[in-house]
């Protein structure tokens, strides 16, 4: 099936979960990443239980913060 990840169309296997996509995409420090799926945020604890579907749009949002 085709999904869009960070603006790029990709072919992935049916039934792929968000957790599996994070591993495939080699996302560093996933604990600092927020995932949006079709503009809705997915909670970290829901990564393994959230299955992707044809046409889904995923964005990985790195935590953006810091200090002086």
């Amino acid at each position, binding site marked *: 099936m085709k999904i869009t990840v960070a*603006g790029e169309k990709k072919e992935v296997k049916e039934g792929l979960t968000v957790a599996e996509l994070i591993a495939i995409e080699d996302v*560093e420090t996933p604990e600092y990443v927020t995932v949006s799926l079709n503009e809705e945020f997915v909670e970290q604890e829901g990564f393994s239980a959230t299955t992707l579907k044809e046409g889904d749009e995923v*964005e990985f949002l*790195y935590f953006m*913060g*810091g*200090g*002086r």
Partner: protein
Amino acid sequence: MQITIKKEDYEAMLSHAKSVAPEEACGLIAGEDQPEGIREIKKVYMLENVDHTNEHFTIDPKDQLAAIKDMRSANLKPLGNWHSHPESPSRPSEEDKRLANDKNASYLILSLENAEDPVLNGFHVESIDGEKTVRKEELSIV
């Protein structure tokens, strides 16, 4: 990596940073990576520092997502973020390094420590063998 930022974008960033000082200002940068290795910033986003302090900044993921949607619609690529150091130099603090987790991003820091002579630098931060390594990027205001 060589980075370019337009003078008007730099000035808008500076103006925003001064307007919210002494709080840290923050936002995102978007543009294109040119084949010859030049990272061209084409748009700067001024976003709310939800911490509202002079010691930290945090960008709300909702604001981040809205900005990224805007970038996608304009065929721009997310290139990283920027923030101000109202009272300290233009270099990543330990907290900045700890929270810089996107090795593809450029991290711009605008120092207002000397109000008469603001300094903007770009940095690449990458975790190598468990240690955060910082490399200054060549940044030109064009």
